[in-house]
Structure formats: C-alpha cells, structure tokens
C-alpha cells in the first residue's frame, strides 16, 4: 500500500507537470481561436425523434444535457473545438465546430450491441466479455421486468435454465415463504445430514445472513451492489431498482469469491442516478392474484358420505349391535344434512382475489460533480389466502460525488417488511373438511363446533371422528400471526483513479436488521378446544420473537488495464472482510383469557409443560483476498488466471485459510484471418475454464471444542454443561472443482445468437458425520467425507426474426434449456447407517424416505416396484429384489424408481415490438423428471375418511369387486400404502410463465407533452396463466397456488 502510494506520488507530480504543460498548450491554441457566443442544436435518433438526456460536451470544458425536445444550447464555444455527443445505446459522435456555426443538428446512429463490447461485472471487478473466459449470463432489469414485474427470482428462473427454484408443493404461492434456489444443481446433501439446523436459531423472517445460507447449503451467493446479501433482500428488492443481474456459474467467473463460490453467484446491480436535469420516474403496478384450485378434485357431500359408508365408518368393526345402531344414528344425522342441501365448497372459503399494489417513485439528477438519487417504494403483496400479505417499504438514498479522479458515493437503504400469515390457518384444514358440514350455525353465525354433542342428540356414542371444529371460526377472532423486519443498510464506496488505467476502490457496508415475529392465539381459538380440562392456564397463547442481525463488510480493490500494441492486460486484486452476527429470543406465554388482551404481559404465565424462553446466537467472520489477471493477444487469444485465499471462522483451527484458483482460456475464432469474410458466422468464441471453488454453508462451530449449558435441568441449583462433541481442528471448506467449456456464436448477420456451456462439477470434502465407536464418548464426528458430481449443459438461443428500425419493428424468439445429472461419488459410513435406519423402518413409509447411495443421484426416489392392483383380490402386488412377486411390502425391496430432477428444464418465448407496442410471451417447461404423487396417496389410499375429505377418485377408481382393473386399492382395504412405484409419475409440464402486453406512448404525443411526461409505458402481465402437466397432483396443500395478473404503468417527468 505504502509503496504504491509513494510511487504514485512521484507519478502524480509528473502527471501534474504534464497537465500544466498541456493546459498551457491548449490555452495558447484557443487564444488564437474566435469564440462562438451561442451554439444551439437538436439531437435526434435515426428515426428523427428527439432524444433527451444526451450528454453534449466540449472536450475538457462545459457539458450540457438535452431536454425532452432533444435540444441543447452551449455558450462561448471556441471555434474548431470538438463537440462530443454521447448517449447510452448510440454511437459516440465527435463533431468539430466550424467557424461561425451557430446551429448543430445531429442524428445519432444506434449502437449495435454486440457481445464483445459488453462488460461482465463479477461484483468484485469488471471485465470486457472479450477478456473474460468464465460462464456468466447478464440480464437487464427491464428484461426481467418484462417476464415478471413483481418477482426477480421467478423472472431469473425463466431467463436462465441453470437457475432453478425448487417447487414448494406445500406452501404454494404463499407470499411469506421464500423460494429455495439453486444454480446448476445441488452439490450438497441436505442440511440435516450435515449437522445444520438444530444449532441455529429459527430463521426469523430469514433476515440473518448465516442461517439463510446454512438452511439451504446449495444456495448461490447473492451479491447486491458489491456486498454479500440474503435471499430475503433479493426477494423483497423492487424490480424497478434493478439495473442488471449477472449469474456467475463457473470457476473462472466466480472463484474470486473463494470459499463462498461453489454454488455460483448472483450479482445484482441497482440503478445509479445519472447526471443531468432532475428526473423523476414513477411506476405503479397493480397485481391481482387469483387462486388456482384447478388441481383439486374433492368429493362432494353426498359422495363423501357414500365413501365413508363403504369404508365402514358407520358400522362397528366387531359387529356390536348397540354401537352399530349409534353409528347409524350419526349416519342419519349427516345424511339429513346432505339431503337438505348442505354441500359446502370448503376450498372456496379461505381464498380470495389478492389485490396487491406496488409504487415506485425515483428521483435522480445532479451535475457532473454531485449526483443524487432518491427511491421510494412500497409493495403490498396480498396473498390468495384471506388475511395473508407481505408489505415492504423501502427508502433508498444515493449520493455521489466526483472530483477529478476521485469518486465517492454513499448509498443508504432503509426498509421495513411486514408479513401477515392468514388467521384462517393452513389451507389443508379446509381441504380436509367435510362438505356436509355448514360453516354457519342455525342463526347464521360462523359455528365453532359443527355437530351437536352426542348427549344433545341423544345418541349413546360420540360421533365417529370425534368433535369437528371450524377453522373458519378463528378468522372472527383477534388472531395475530406476523413477522416483520426493519433493516438499515449503508454502503460507502470510494474510487480513486491513480492513472486513467489504474483504479483503487474501497467500500464499507453496514447492515443492521431487527427481525421480529409474534403469534397470538386467543383462548377461543379452535386449537384450544378440548384443553379446558387441563386448566384455564393453557388457554390462549402469545409467542414473541425478537432478533438482531448485523453484518459488516469492507472491501478494497485495485484494477489495472493496459493496451500496448496487440496486447491487452487486465489485472484486479483486492480483498474483503466480513463479520456477521445474529441473535434471537423466543418467549411464549400462555393463559390469556380475553380475545382483545393480545399482549405478552396479559398472560397468566408460561405453559404448564415447561416452556421457557429460548435463544439462538450465531457469529461468523470471513476474510477473502483475490487476484485476477487476464491477457489478450490481438483480440484472438485470451488467458485468464484468478486466485483467491479465503479464511473463515467456520473452518477448523488448523485450516483457517483456504486457497482457490481458476484458469481460463478463450479463442475468438472469428477474429482469425482464415475465418474472416465468412458470410455465416459473425462471431465464434470458444472458452474453457477450470478451477477450484469452495462452499462454507455449514454450521459455525464444528472446528473447536464447545461446551453447551443444560438449561432445562439443574443439579442442586447449579447449572451444568457438557461437550458438544469432538472438535475437528482439521475441518475444511467443501471444495468444488469446476470445468466449463463454452461456445458463443452469432450467425446470419447476427440474427441468431447462441450461447452454450458444458460443465462438470466435482464436489469433494462434503462435511458429513463420520460414525465413531460410541466408547469414544460420541457417536459421530464431522469430517470432510462426501463427494458428488454434477454434469450438464445449458444452451441459450435467441433469434432476431425481424429487425427493421425504420418501421420500428422488432421480433425476437428465444429458447433456453439446461440439463444436468447428479451422482453421489462417496459418502460417510454414518450416512449408510442413516440409510439402513430408513430402510429398516418397516412401518408407515407413506412417503418415500430419502436414501443416499454411491452412484445414484441425491434426488432419487426409492420405492418398492409395484405390479399394480391384483384384479382378483384388490391388493397390491409387489416385485421383490430377487424378482419374485409378493403382496407383502418390505422396505428392503426398495429400489430407485425415478429421479426428481428433470432431464431438461428450460423456457422459450417470443418478444415482439411494433411501434410502441410490446408483446412478450414466455413458456417454461421441465421434462424427464419423476415425482411421487404424495397428495394422491394421501387423498385416495392413505386417506382417513373418519376425519378428512378425499379425492373423488376414491369412489370412481378404487377396486370394488374381483375382476376390476383398478388403479387404487379397495376402499375397504384400510392398510397403509407405503412407498410404491405405483405413485411415481412422470413430472413433465409446460407452464405459461408470463404473457406481457405493453405500449410505450410516443413522447411526441400531444397529451404526453402537455402532461410534461417523457416516456409513459403501460404494461399488462399475466403470470402462470396455464399449466399443462403429465401429473395430476393436488398442488398447494398448505397454501394454494395463484395465477397473477399485473397492470403496470410507468412514466418519467
């Protein structure tokens, strides 16, 4: 540092001398010139329309910006000086002012954006695509918004085939459930096998950096404006603020992040204000969510009663006459309900059309020296369950200062998020409800209990299935169930251009977040029905969670580039130090008699079962140093080397610093002489990279011996503690070796652009438990044991069908697909024991338990092969491992019967622009994966008709008499259906992810001018419009899926 400084001092002196000399020279020259008092002009695009915001400058002197009419005025312009006209998307023009000229009319030429000019931003350094050998995809915020105006994450999944969201069939479209994301597949076994989860605090609003990564060890690193962030921040980020998103996939692109790079990196840049006149942009988006219940096919009232009767609910299994009579009375009671027309559509009760709005107002402006930006956004995302919503408020303030070679900026973000969970409870409660119960009592009020008691009806036995409560009743109470966070982020960045081609930059990011959650269930809540007998002390409960997360992140970087002759060099070195801490406290109190006393202090005390406050604290520190150099010869050959040294408090004390590296090479074949003049290919570029990256998404303290206090017991009033296990001082980062071969080409006059990548990722040193003899005192020991391999490819094609700038007519088609296979290469013996334990469970494997075997994929479905339902007996016939058939299910016969990972995932679409109209459609698909149709098993065969409703196929498709070729067992067969291949189905689907229709009003329109607007746009987007699937699955059991319609309007003024 100091050496550089002293060197730069000398150079600075020299350069100042040179500058002074040059200034004198310029001064002398200009002295000889005459001055034009005023030069006015107009800038227009190739179609002749005025362009606003164009920077017009006299080199080294004044700068002005064109207004809405494209006009500008410069004063005191020296004759023969060069006017420089620049604007994003247009070619730079430099015009020499002729003596006596007072008017300047310029038509700008549109810049044809070819890939070689683009710059890849890795978050740590930027590099022109030509000098970059890694695999990265860059998407602009506008492109993403076109696909999904409300969710960045969903838009990314459509835009890039390697970005996958694991579909959550339970939580559906719950706005308060974060998605699970992966880039290029999973390298890691689930968190619970890695000693994660239990030692961490519950992810309060998921705002804590550590737990957010530890809970999904396959989650890519998320970098927002140069600093590590959380998925929640990305999820809540207003899409209007996004400038561009870059996905870094291979080692060459991501290795600068060292031990955090193995899962890939998502780099997000937010919009920065540009200098010029104060500009205000307002956009509003109205979002309508419509519940998608089309996947449900439940029995109606009459059907259910019939099914219950066939299943023997209303007959005594032992043939007891008295019981039979009582059950018959209950049957009649319910039949009466059916006959008088009670047929409640329970699915429709808790859902609504969610009407959400989001507003974004941004102001930006400034001079060449000072730029400022203010961004206010408010999003109210209403879920389709009544009462569920997510509201976010964000205030972002940017202040930038430029003085010569020095730049300083400060970016402050204040955000508040509030998630309300529906007081109606889980959606499954409603799917289970009997349709012959009416939610209202005879007086028209919402009933709490459906049926009168046995005593009231004069029936000797209680109702089959017990007392049924109405979950709807809770919606009339003062139930509170929400979580929230308040977060302040401040980032200071400074940059100093020591030379034009040597840049020193540094930054400090401080995040402080206060997450909170509360849940209040009043005494009258249906969950307390039946607990009156245990004492009033337990009725009504209030739970409060309070947390505190903090992140401090600082970085420094030095970038150098130089071109001499045929050689171009880019060098970047830098470092990053990060410290995170999080804590949370949970307190539950019980015994709140009145509905309106919804405060913790109103409670009678703690639960009778000794519930005490709980606390979770986690703290980490990491350090990372990187260096990256790229060399290019005659724009043909590129070589790139990146190294990184990462240190983390999570590593064992003997392995605190980890080295990582990547090499890459690129060959621009199109620049070769033998290739030139080729009429087909305009660009052909081959890239190869190999490198080693790391992953540290595991629990903080496996590397040192830790004592934990026993907080539930005392020994004669003393507290005791005990060892958590053997520390592994040699514990290492998980290591992923990544090989990537990429080909980029554009052909047929750049009408077709193809970008393809083939990759092999080998992960070693997975942190897994190693079984040890229990006489050592512990049964497992965390060590680097497992290995997995992911292989795959991804292809992205875009084709310009029509490109007619004169008519302003553009039509582009796009297609992308990705494929990967996952194989487990090695496992620890403890995982084998885990498998054996799962295999040994001979009872109740109603869902296929995960089994991990070397040579298989992690997402393999293990079940017993089924030969179907025997037409003679109605029982299921299985094939044993030795090939013989049996009616007896045994866990030992389980085999791999399907893989949940689809063979292909991708999207295709079309984007049409004509005049101001925009029409965009994107379809996403998956092909070649399987799924265990869990909801079908649960609602057809393992259904307990005693207390839940069932799928209508219970009546139609189950075996009834000998000779029936049915797909399901007999209704009277109450044996549990365990994991069988019969329910493994192909999971191929085609989803209309988004359809967008928009119109950009011409800025020349008279009303636009009168309203002083500049580029008003109106957009209508429909997401998840329809879905064609080979699997008939009841989707969204805990929370329904939704289709959404968005109406967006934005304008600048």
């Amino acid at each position: 540092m100091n050496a550089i400084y002293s060197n730069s001092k000398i150079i600075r002196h020299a350069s100042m001398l040179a500058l002074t000399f040059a200034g004198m020279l310029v001064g002398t020259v200009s002295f000889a010139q005459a001055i034009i008092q005023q030069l006015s002009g107009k800038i227009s695009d190739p179609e002749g329309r005025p362009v606003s915001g164009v920077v017009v400058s006299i080199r080294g002197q004044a700068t002005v910006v064109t207004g809405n009419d494209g006009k500008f005025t410069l004063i005191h312009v020296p004759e023969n000086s060069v006017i420089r006209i620049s604007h994003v998307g247009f070619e730079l023009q430099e015009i020499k002012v002729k003596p006596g000229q007072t008017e300047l009319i310029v038509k700008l030429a549109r810049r044809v954006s070819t890939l070689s000019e683009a710059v890849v931003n890795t978050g740590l350094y930027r590099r022109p695509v030509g000098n970059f050998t890694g695999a990265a995809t860059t998407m602009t915020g506008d492109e993403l918004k076109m696909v999904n105006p409300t969710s960045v994450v969903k838009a990314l999944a459509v835009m890039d085939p390697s970005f996958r969201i694991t579909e959550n069939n339970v939580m559906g479209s719950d706005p308060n459930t974060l998605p699970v994301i992966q880039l290029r597949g999973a390298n890691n076994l689930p968190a619970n096998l890695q000693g994660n989860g239990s030692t961490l605090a519950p992810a309060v609003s998921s705002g804590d950096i550590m737990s957010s990564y530890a809970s999904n060890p396959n989650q890519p690193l998320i970098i927002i404006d140069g600093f590590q962030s959380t998925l929640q921040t990305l999820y809540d980020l207003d899409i209007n603020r996004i400038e561009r998103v870059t996905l870094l996939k291979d080692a060459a692109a991501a290795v600068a992040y060292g031990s955090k790079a193995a899962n890939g990196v998502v780099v997000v840049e937010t919009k920065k204000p540009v200098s010029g006149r104060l500009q205000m942009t307002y956009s509003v988006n109205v979002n309508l969510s419509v519940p998608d219940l089309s996947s449900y096919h439940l029995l109606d009232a009459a059907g259910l009663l019939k099914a219950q009767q066939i299943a023997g609910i209303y007959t005594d299994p032992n043939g007891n006459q008295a019981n039979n009579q009582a059950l018959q009375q209950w049957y009649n009671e319910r039949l009466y309900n059916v006959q008088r027309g009670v047929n409640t559509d329970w699915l429709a009760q808790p859902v609504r059309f969610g009407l959400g709005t989001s507003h974004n107002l941004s102001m930006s402006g400034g001079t060449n020296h000072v730029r400022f930006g203010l961004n206010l956004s408010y999003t109210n995302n209403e879920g389709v369950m009544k009462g569920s919503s997510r509201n976010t408020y964000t205030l972002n303030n940017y202040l930038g200062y430029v003085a010569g070679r020095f730049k300083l900026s400060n970016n402050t973000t204040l955000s508040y998020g509030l998630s309300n969970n529906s007081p109606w409870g889980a959606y499954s409660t409603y799917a289970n409800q009997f349709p012959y119960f009416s939610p209202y009592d005879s007086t028209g009020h919402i009933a709490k209990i459906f049926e009168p008691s046995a005593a009231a009806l004069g029936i000797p036995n209680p109702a089959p299935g017990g007392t049924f409560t109405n979950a709807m009743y809770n919606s009339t109470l003062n139930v509170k169930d929400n979580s929230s966070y308040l977060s302040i982020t401040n980032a200071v960045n400074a940059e100093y251009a020591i030379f034009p081609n040597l840049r020193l930059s540094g930054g400090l990011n401080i995040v402080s977040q206060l997450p909170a959650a509360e849940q209040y269930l009043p005494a009258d809540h249906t969950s307390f029905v039946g607990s009156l007998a245990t004492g009033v002390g337990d009725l009504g409960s209030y739970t409060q969670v309070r947390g505190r997360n903090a992140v401090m992140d600082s970085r420094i970087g030095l970038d150098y580039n130089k071109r001499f002759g045929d050689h171009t060099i880019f060098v970047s070195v830098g470092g990053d130090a990060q410290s995170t801490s999080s804590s949370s406290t949970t307190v539950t109190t019980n015994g709140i008699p009145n509905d309106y006393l919804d405060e913790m202090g109103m409670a009678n005390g703690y639960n009778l079962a000794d519930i005490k406050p709980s606390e979770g604290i986690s703290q980490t520190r990491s350090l990372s140093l990187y260096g990256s150099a790229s060399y290019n010869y005659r724009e043909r050959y590129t070589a790139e080397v990146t190294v990184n040294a990462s240190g983390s408090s999570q590593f064992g004390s003997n392995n605190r610093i980890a080295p990582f590296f990547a090499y890459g090479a690129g060959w621009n074949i199109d620049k070769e002489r033998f290739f030139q003049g080729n009429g087909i290919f305009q660009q052909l570029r081959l890239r190869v990279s190999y490198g080693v990256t790391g992953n540290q998404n595991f629990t903080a303290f496996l590397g040192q011996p830790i004592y934990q206090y026993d907080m539930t017991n005392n020994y004669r009033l003393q507290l005791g503690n005990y060892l958590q296990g053997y520390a592994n001082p040699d514990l290492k980062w998980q290591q992923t070796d990544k090989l990537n071969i990429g080909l980029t080409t554009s052909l047929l006059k750049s009408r077709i652009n193809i970008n393809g990548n083939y990759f092999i990722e080998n992960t070693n040193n997975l942190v897994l438990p190693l079984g040890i003899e229990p006489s050592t005192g512990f049964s497992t020991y965390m060590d680097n044991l497992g290995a997995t391999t992911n292989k795959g490819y991804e292809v992205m094609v875009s084709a310009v069908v029509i490109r007619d700038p004169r008519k302003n007519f553009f039509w582009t088609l796009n297609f992308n697909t990705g494929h990967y296979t996952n194989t487990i290469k090695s496992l620890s013996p403890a995982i084998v024991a885990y498998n054996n334990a799962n295999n040994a469970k001979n009872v109740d494997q109603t869902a296929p338990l995960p089994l991990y075997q070397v040579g298989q994929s992690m997402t393999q479905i293990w079940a017993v092969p089924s030969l179907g339902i025997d037409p003679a007996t109605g029982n299921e016939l299985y094939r044993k491992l030795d090939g013989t058939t049996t009616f007896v299910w045994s866990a030992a016969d389980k085999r791999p019967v399907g893989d949940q990972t689809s063979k292909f995932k991708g999207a295709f679409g079309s984007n049409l622009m004509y005049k101001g109209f925009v029409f965009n459609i994107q379809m996403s698909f998956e092909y070649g994966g399987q799924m265990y149709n869990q909801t079908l098993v649960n609602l057809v065969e393992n259904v307990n008709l005693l207390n839940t409703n069932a799928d209508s196929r219970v009546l139609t498709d189950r075996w009834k008499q000998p000779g029936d070729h049915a797909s399901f067992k007999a209704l009277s067969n109450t044996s549990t259906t365990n994991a069988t291949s019969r329910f493994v189905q192909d999971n191929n689907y085609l989803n209309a992810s988004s359809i967008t229709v928009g119109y950009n009003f011409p800025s020349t329109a008279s009303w636009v001018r009168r309203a002083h607007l500049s580029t008003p746009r109106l957009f209508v987007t429909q997401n998840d419009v329809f879905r064609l699937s080979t699997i008939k699955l009841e989707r969204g059991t805990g929370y329904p899926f939704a289709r959404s319609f968005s109406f967006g309007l934005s304008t600048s003024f």
Partner: protein
Amino acid sequence: MIRFEKIMIVSLLAGSLTSCKKWLNVTPQDKVPQVTLFTNEQGFKDALTGVYLNMDKSTSGGSNGIYTNDLSMGILSVMAYNYDNASNSAAGGSALYNAAYLYNYNDPLLKPEIGYIWSALYNNIANVNNILAQIDAAKGVFTADNYQRIKGEALGLRALFHFDAVRLFGQPPLTAGTTPAIPYVKSFTIRQTPLYTVGAVLDSCLADLAAARSLLSLTDTSAVLGATTDPFTSYTQNHLNYWAVGGLTARVYLYAGNTDSASYYAKAVIGSNKFPLITSNVAASTNVVRDHTYSQEHLFALYSQNIGAYSLSIFELQSPATPLVLNVSATGKNNPYIVPVSDNTDWRLKSWFDPIPGSTNVNTVVPSKFYQEANLPYNLQGLMPVIRVSEMYYIAAECAGTNGDVPTGVNFINPVRLARGLTALNSAGISTTDSLFHLIRNEYRKEFSQEGQTFFYYKRLNLNLNTYAGTPTILPPAVFVFPLPDAEKQYRGL
C-alpha cells in the same frame, strides 16, 4: 525517513497477518468454547455438574434417565425380578419392560436402550476425561480445596462409570477369565481404546479410586453437609465424596473377589459414623415429610428433578392402567419381606410400597420409593441412591462369611435389621455360611428394590436366576452380559 517508512510497512504487514488469524477466531455466545470455559474455577465446577446432570438424562440419547431410571428403577430392576408383572405390564408406555423381563437383548426397544446406556456412560467418561485433561494446567485458578474436590470427584466418577460398564457389559467376575470386556478410557481422545479384561478394568478402577481417595482426603471431610451458602460444596451426599469413594472401593474389591480389602474399606466407612442408620419408621410419620429413601444413609445419591416423572411413568395407577407392581404374598417372588413371618414388620415394606387403592388384594403393592409428594422438603426431593451405607454392612458381613467367620457376619447384618424394624438375629441360630449368604441375598433383594444393585449382586455371584430370583424359565449362562452396541462392534471389527 525512508527507513522509518519501511519499518512501518513491515510491522503493519506483520501485524495484520497475525491479527488476521486472531480476527477469524470467533467465540459463540450461547455456548462456551473449551478455551474460555477452563479459564476459571466456575467453568470446572459447571463441567463437573454437567457430568452429574448427564448421569440422569444423557445428551447422547435414550428414552429414560440412565442412573435415575434404566440402571435403577427401570430395566435393571425388571431384570432382577423386582416386579412381578413386568412380562405384561404396559408401564413406561412401551413393551420395553416386557422384553427386559425375558432378557431379550435383540428386542427393537431394549437393544437401542442398551446402546444408549453404553453411549451415556462413555459420553460421561469423555466429559470427565476432558476435565482431567485440562485441570492440572489450570491449577492456579482454584480456591480453597476445590482443585482436589473436582479432580478427586472426576477420577472417582471415571471409576464409577467404567465399573458399571464392566458390570453390565463384561462377563460375571467368576467366569470372566481373559475375555476382553470393555475399553478403559483414560484420555480424551477420538482414537479407539482397546478392550480390557474384566480384571484389568477392575484394577484400573481401583487405581483411579485410590487416586480419588487421596485427593479427596485433602478436602474438608469434617462433616456431611446439607444446604450451605456455597452451592458447590452443599449437599455432600449428592457428590461422589470422600466416603462414597471409599464405599465404591469396597464394592469394587468385593466384585474383584478381594474380601480383605473390601472388608477394610467397608468397615472404614461404617466406622466414620457419618452415615448413621435410621432409627424410626418413616412410614409412621406423615406423608409430607416421609423420607422414602432414608436419605441419611446415602453415601452418594444422584439428584434429579425428573425422578418424580420417571416414577409416575412406571408406577402410576391412572395411566398406564397396569403399573409395575410387587407381589409380596408368601408365594410371591418378593416374599422375603414377609417370610419368615417374624420379618413382616419390615419398615421397608411399609415405607416403600403402597397398596393399590380400592383393591382388596393386600399382597399386590405398588412401589412408591421415588414418588415425590407435593410438599416434600427440598433436601429430600429427587434423590436416587447410588451407594448406601447398608451395603457396607452387607459387604463386611459377606467378607466375614467368606473367611468362615459367620458370627461376625451376623453381627454386621443385625444393625441394619434393627434399623428396618426387625429383630436382631441370634448368631447362634445362623450356623453355616450358606445360611448367612441366604440372609444377605434376601437383604439385597429387599434393600435395593428399584435401585438396581440386586441385579449386580446376582451377576457377581453368577447365581442361577431361576433358583434365586424365581424366573419363569431357565436362562442361559451368558444372560448377565449386555451385548456391546452394534456401532461399537462395527467400528472395532468385532
């Protein structure tokens, strides 16, 4: 000037490199890293307290408490046939006791529970070993006699755990020979410790006990304390104290067949007069202050808040509807309480068992030794005796008998009989060692009901359970040997 700058740069660089490593050292706040814990006396106290807590409900698994349930009122008492209906009782909410009654070690409930007992004992050993590994380096942080106390108790506990492990998983001492039994782990290490023979384990136990005894003799042994102002030195009987180590030494010597030493240490404890036998029937006083376990006689009793819950789970009358019970009729297996008839005034029968309310069957009684009454005074709450002074009398008597001195043997039995509401026996009436041993056997069956020691008594003498405990079937000779857990065998290649 330039030189000064250079020095600055070098020292800054050097400083930042070392501080780098320091900066990456993060200590968690809800847990304590070992390096922090053992910097003060309280850390050692807490670690030792953790071992006592872990003797109850171990962190290494198990559905029950270890010393407070499995090795006392639970499995071991079932196996010693303390209860008459264990074959069909639903006590404990599972079929665990049905399997234990049949010594069915492969039962899917009993097998893992035995594994947990093993894991819990060795987990405690690991914790103790870590204290022992750290304590000498930190000798300077201790005040008063706490260094000797903690190290002495830790050594004693290490012996206790290994001794109980070998009593469970090793061959009976009479048939043990040179068969490898269990590892004797003396250091905190992930490396495998080889299996020792029963004899070698017992020798190691005695060595640890001798070391423990000499350390604890340096502590304040002037009195057996109850509650004092210092929580760590309060409740002497709830720590493996000086006398408890002596009592344990006697127990180990007897198990090893060294009657002279066993007798010496047993008499030393008796002679200390710190643990006087009770003198009145606790059942006669009101329930509120009923000292069920005769707490003044405990050399070492474990304290646990959970004992009441364990007792309820096994002996509660409401649910399960079929608790474990005793049949004390003349033909029942637990007849020593009333046979001979002159012995039916035994205070133990009155104070440890209650009739089933509403039942007319006076011979079927439910154990209430560990029932925790609502108003039980704090000092009597949650006690599970591990070593009693009465055992010292029995050891002295048995040693005398083995040496052919029957009258001395009878003289050691009589003080306990008197303290149990029975009459002193005339040594002239007990003429043979066999009749003395019969007397002692009956004492073990009565005295250690629900405390587990009866099982170890049978095993030590390799008695035929069919003859002496009245098992329904003849059990194979290896019945006393708990199988090593599968994981242990697997990683040892056995």
